[in-house]
């Protein structure tokens, strides 16, 4: 078994060079990992969660009331059941992620915004049966303490493995959502600042005038308490102006700040827009250094404003930011110097904090995320495998596979920045992850304030991770990302997966492998930030050590908190480095590691699979335990867990395609429609109507779900009609099949079932016409390969029959009413296994998969045939076309074992592949060509 970790691992241990590597390694994504623990039942339901399905929870750490849940997606109380959201919010938000330094860093005069990267943590509570991927983010709020409002988004599931193994995708998706929120937030924040600045300047001008008046009133009273107070006030306001101006500068510099987070891809246009906006503001307020244009209106505010101080002054020194937090209201108003009490004010809601469009876009994105993670791990995993395989066969995928083009970019390594305002779709960024810096570069550290070396263990764990994570991918978490483990969970649950622990857990599972793996030739020896040639030596020994000590080590190293300002220097340096590394093709791997963990010494480590880039590594990799849950079986059939989610292809579903019932894969019995599924089956009310049977011809993308549903119809067709094989052959060999019948529903159902067999049906089933009630022409035959035709007894009907007879040489006619089929005889063997009317397959979905595999096999053969040069073209100049022809026939008959009729299938598929290859988008000025042959048809009856 190539995929077996043990064998390969031991082979690797020998030494490189000695064992020759497998010349035909199976690409990583195709190997089926074994379930690691033979004794455990992979299907065993371990969870006793109080909620029925996964959901997304957004919580906030409110400075007034503490952690509180804000909303869940899906937004339905049923989802959470008896699950205590408040308690869970407390758990996930009690990670004091925001313990960053705010206020004045030493050496700067103004309060600083902390630019905090998001942190990603996996938390668990086995008592509750809940595990969560938690994504912390910070939004800016001028009125909040330290200007920041901590939020978190959590993906809550009952299956810890699901979270762990989907970490990569979760992280990607949530990063997108987070970026979107933050983009909106920055706008809102800039606007708020602008308002505030205007107010402050107004206040300033008013105060200046007042002071001037006082001074004029009498020099003798110059040093009166009142005058001092006024002067203080004025100074305060001035300071406040500077502070706010500085804040504005900071927020506008946000974008120029190099991101350490590889997933933080932002829409360039949004960024540019926001930047220019900010700059505009900055310019505006930089000009008015000492504004003095407000004199005329100053009197108005004076009565309300002139004497309100009293308590503010004494705080000035120790609480600089108090000035910032003074209450303000809009339309140039005087700023009350009264410092707001924390509990008096109403905190802005999330909607207010972010621009409305951005907020809505984020929610939509999260909904999509939730949908795409529906289903159990096996299902997700199989689907991913499926997609990986499908991507491998891009040339032929158009034949029988559903369209992948929409949802593949994130898995391809390109990440589309999610943009709330729908900026250019072409705005793709290739996700060559910028190197994630685990620790600042050593010499930089020396230059800064980390004199001591990392201790070996942590360093190796670093290098280890850097390798596992494919070279450049380390994430440096800024000191403000410190992650706290929720303490209580450590005893009662094993499931608090904060960084290291998960690493440890993984390491435990495959202790041996790690060390062996580390011997594997490193494809990118310089991958670590510490280009230490010796680090290889240490690796093996330390890897075991890591599991025991890593936590502490991480804690120690992380214990050093780099002040933000310094960190920014570091991050700039890193940014340079990132630019250097840009060209290195890495995978999208992420190893977010919190080196800086201030309390629980739990950083977190995560390795995700590293496809393609290191096939060598992958064979025996380290990653395998993470894939071991996948068993090569049809998962849904066996797994009762979370069955509400099991249907369909969550990814590709859009609400548009709602023509069908949500058919549970667990049976064809009609579905338990959960409320969340509503979006998938918007029209489920149309149950039993004809449309449900035929998803085709409505211009909507044919989804996997519809195809699976059609599988049932196809199975029925195959079992019911003895001449099904001939009909299938017609479709597969490119002969247009006309389904003739009087009953629309019946014809539509037949067409929907048979559409599965139409090669290259088009994204929306363009090659299929489900119901036609007028005579067709030759162009129709050319366009449609499967036509449902209404039989009418009228003059129109006779002209229709006339066209049927006229074009009879191009078509096969399946008469649904008389159950006859008129088509050329088929005697081949190729289709017997999909058209066996005594098949033991009972379920549509099973049949669909069976069919898929057969068709895939066919497509592979057709691919081989198409791209084998000597089967189509002469090898030498002396060869005539007859030689080529005979060679082709020989290949088809002897090597592929296909008879005459079976060859026609292959020839047709090959022709389609050729056309597709030559004109990928069908973008040709020329009319499509239509091939046929002159053969006699015979009439099949039941």
């Amino acid at each position, binding site marked *: 078994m190539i995929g077996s970790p043990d064998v390969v691992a031991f082979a690797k241990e020998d030494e490189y060079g000695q064992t020759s590597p497998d010349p035909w390694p199976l690409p990583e994504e195709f190997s089926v990992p074994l379930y690691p623990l033979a004794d455990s039942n992979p299907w065993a339901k371990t969870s006793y969660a109080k909620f029925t399905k996964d959901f997304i929870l957004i919580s906030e750490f409110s400075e007034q009331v503490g952690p509180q849940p804000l909303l869940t997606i899906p937004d339905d109380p049923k989802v959470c059941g008896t699950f205590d959201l408040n308690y869970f919010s407390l758990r996930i938000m009690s990670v004091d992620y925001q313990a960053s330094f705010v206020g004045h860093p030493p050496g700067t005069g103004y309060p600083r915004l902390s630019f905090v990267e998001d942190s990603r943590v996996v938390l668990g509570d086995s008592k509750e049966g809940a595990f969560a991927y938690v994504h912390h983010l910070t939004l800016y709020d001028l009125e909040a303490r330290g200007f920041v409002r901590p939020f978190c988004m959590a993906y809550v599931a009952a299956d810890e493995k699901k979270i762990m193994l989907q970490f990569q995708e979760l992280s990607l998706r949530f990063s997108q959502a987070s970026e979107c929120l933050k983009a909106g937030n920055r706008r809102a924040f800039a606007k708020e600042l602008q308002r505030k600045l205007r107010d402050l300047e107004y206040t300033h001008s008013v105060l200046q005038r007042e002071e001037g008046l006082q001074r004029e009133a009498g020099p003798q009273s110059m040093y009166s308490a009142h005058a001092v107070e006024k002067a203080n006030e004025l100074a305060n306001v001035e300071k406040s102006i500077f502070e706010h101006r500085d804040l504005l500068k900071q927020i506008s510099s946000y974008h120029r700040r190099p991101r350490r987070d590889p997933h933080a891809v932002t829409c360039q246009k949004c960024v540019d827009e926001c930047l220019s906006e900010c700059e505009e503001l900055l310019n505006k307020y930089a000009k008015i250094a000492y504004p003095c244009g407000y004199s005329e209106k100053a009197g108005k505010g004076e009565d309300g404003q002139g004497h309100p101080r009293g308590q503010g002054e004494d705080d000035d020194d120790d609480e600089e930011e108090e000035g910032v937090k003074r209450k303000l209201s809009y339309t140039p108003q005087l700023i009350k110097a009264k410092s707001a009490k924390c509990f008096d004010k109403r905190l802005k809601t999330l909607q207010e904090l972010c621009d409305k469009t951005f907020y809505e876009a984020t929610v939509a994105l999260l909904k999509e995320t939730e949908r795409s993670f529906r289903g159990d791990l096996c299902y997700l995993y199989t689907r991913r495998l499926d997609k990986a395989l499908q991507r491998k066969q891009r040339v032929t995928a158009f034949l029988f596979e559903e369209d992948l083009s929409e949802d593949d970019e994130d898995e391809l390594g390109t990440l589309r920045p999610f943009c709330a305002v729908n900026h250019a779709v072409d705005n793709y960024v290739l996700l060559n992850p910028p190197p994630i810096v685990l620790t600042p570069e050593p010499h930089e550290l020396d230059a800064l304030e980390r004199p001591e070396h990392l201790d070996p263990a942590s360093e190796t764990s670093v290098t280890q991770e850097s390798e596992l994570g494919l070279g450049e991918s380390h994430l440096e978490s800024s000191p403000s990302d410190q992650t706290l483990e929720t303490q209580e969970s450590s005893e009662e649950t094993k499931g608090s997966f904060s960084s290291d622990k998960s690493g440890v857990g993984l390491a435990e599972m495959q202790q041996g492998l790690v060390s062996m793996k580390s011997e594997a030739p490193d494809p990118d020896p310089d991958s670590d930030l510490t280009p230490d040639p010796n680090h290889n030596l240490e690796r093996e020994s330390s890897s075991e050590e890591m599991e025991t000590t890593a936590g502490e080590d991480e804690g120690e190293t992380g214990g050093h908190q780099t002040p933000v300002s310094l960190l920014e220097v570091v991050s700039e340096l890193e940014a340079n480095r990132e630019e250097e590394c840009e060209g290195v093709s890495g995978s999208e791997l992420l190893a977010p590691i919190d080196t800086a963990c201030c309390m629980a010494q739990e950083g977190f480590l995560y390795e995700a699979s590293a496809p393609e880039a290191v096939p060598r590594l992958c064979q025996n990799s380290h990653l395998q335990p993470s894939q071991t849950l996948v068993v090569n079986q049809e998962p849904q059939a066996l797994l009762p867990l979370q069955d509400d989610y099991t249907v369909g292809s969550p990814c590709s579903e859009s609400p548009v395609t709602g023509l069908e019932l949500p058919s549970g894969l667990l049976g064809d019995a009609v579905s338990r429609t959960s409320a969340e599924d509503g979006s998938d089956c918007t029209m489920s009310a149309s149950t039993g109507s004809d449309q449900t049977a035929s998803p085709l011809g409505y211009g909507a993308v044919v989804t996997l779900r519809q195809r699976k549903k059609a599988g049932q119809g196809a199975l029925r067709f195959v079992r019911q009609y003895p001449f099904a094989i001939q009909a299938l052959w017609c479709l597969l060999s490119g002969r247009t099949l006309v389904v003739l019948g009087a009953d629309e529903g019946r014809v539509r159902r037949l067409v929907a079932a048979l559409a599965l067999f139409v090669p290259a049906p088009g994204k929306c089933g363009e090659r299929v016409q489900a119901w036609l009630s007028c005579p067709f022409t030759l162009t129709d035959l050319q366009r449609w390969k499967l036509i449902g035709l209404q039989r009418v007894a009228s003059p129109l009907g006779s002209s229709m029959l006339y066209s049927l007879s006229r074009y009879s040489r191009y078509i096969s006619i399946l008469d649904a009413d008389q159950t006859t089929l008129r088509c050329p005889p088929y005697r081949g063997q190729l289709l017997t296994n999909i058209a066996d009317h005594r098949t033991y397959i009972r379920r549509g979905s099973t049949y669909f998969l069976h069919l898929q595999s057969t068709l895939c096999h066919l497509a592979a053969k057709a691919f081989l045939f198409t791209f084998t040069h000597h089967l189509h073209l002469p090898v030498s100049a002396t060869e005539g076309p007859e030689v080529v022809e005979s060679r082709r026939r020989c290949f088809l008959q002897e090597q592929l074992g296909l008879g005459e009729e079976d060859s026609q299938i292959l020839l047709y598929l090959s022709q389609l592949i050729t056309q597709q290859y030559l004109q990928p988008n069908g973008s040709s000025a020329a009319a499509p060509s239509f091939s046929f042959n002159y053969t*006699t048809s015979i009439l099949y009856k039941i």
Partner: protein
Amino acid sequence: METYQTGQHFISASRFGVLCLQRCSSTRLGCNKWLLDFPVLCIGEEQPKNCFTELQVLKGHFDIVRFLVQIDDFRCASAGDDGLVLVWNVETGERLQELRGHSQQITAITTITCKNEVTLNTSLITASSDRSLSLWDPDTGNRVQTISDLHSSVKCLLVLERLCVWLSGGEELCVWNRDFQLQCQRPNHRITALIELPKNYIAAAMDKKISKISADSSLSVAEIRCLSDHQDQIRALINVNDGLFASGSHMGELILWNATEWNLLAYEHILWEESQDYNQTEIRMGAPKPSEMSIQHLTTNGNLILAAVGSGLYVYSVQTRSVVAYRKVAHDSNVLHTMLLSDCELMSCSEDGSVRMWEIQDLPLPAEPASSGFFGMWSFGRSNKQSGPPSKKVIDIPNIRMLELTGDLIGHSGAVQMFVSFTEKGLVTCSADHLLILWKNGERQSRLRSLALFQKLEERGGL
């Protein structure tokens, strides 16, 4: 049941046989009642000799497409009642140019080749019912020259390459030079066809007469002689070879003329008179109408003259001055255009919407009454068993051979007006259903596609 007769040489199908055919053809589709005029002759679906296994439907016209001209070895132009002229690439099926300018239907189209120092430049001359003439550059789609406000619309065009002039015929005969300048003009003709004869003479068909007109280098036209042997309107006029030309009339007269001596060489009156003897009223109503004998079209390859007579085909040998082969009912309706592909292969298209390919075969020996060849003529695919008693009664006729249907092309839903063959590159047909169809050899196309595929593969350096 068929009868071959000597003397007037025709085959007539008996009522029984025809009925039988109809029954066969209708059973073939599982329906008995809905077509009395279903193709009389049907080859069935198995056509091993038919190499046109791929087609492209070319759309672009809005009305009947009547004319096709070949521009060079890969382009052709189509013109029709919508006044549009479209230039097509036959290899790819692309529409290259759209020549717009005429407001009414096109009545004649021809190519004119200008020889530059380097290149041969082919242009198109079109005449339309809007009484205008235009010269087009098919490469750019530009209208290079145009003349409007003619006295009458032009019915036919003739280019005299040698004299660098071209003629337009209609109510009047005009001679033009390449720059569209009128050289001379003769009114009061009703010219329907023009051909070029040796020694700068021109034959013009005018109603029942053929005029010999000299168009010498002085660029004046003068009627020299008039031939009036035809009893009816002349429908077709062709050059056979250097010394001969032929004309066909509405009532079925085929006359072979000596082009130099200007005298009648042979007269053949095609009469399907036997058909009247049989009572065919159920199928073909009444006596043959004149149109059934009308010579719609003549083609020749120098040795043979192929005449489209009504819905039949008639092959006449120039050397032996006799009919070689014929088929009275070759199509269900009038044959509109024919072509001799070789000495034994020909093609015809008809108002019934089909194009048929024929082979001139020797008749089977009488000793083998139901030989495959003859049988094949009436083969209807699998429904043969119902076709009643096998046809026989072949009367051995010296010199006469038979036309066997080797294939048909069905695609158009209206009358096929014309076709142009690009030999191996395919065949273009145009039809009253506003479409052109490009028929191709599927194997050749697939070979070409494979070639393109591997070229692209090479360019890309892999998949």
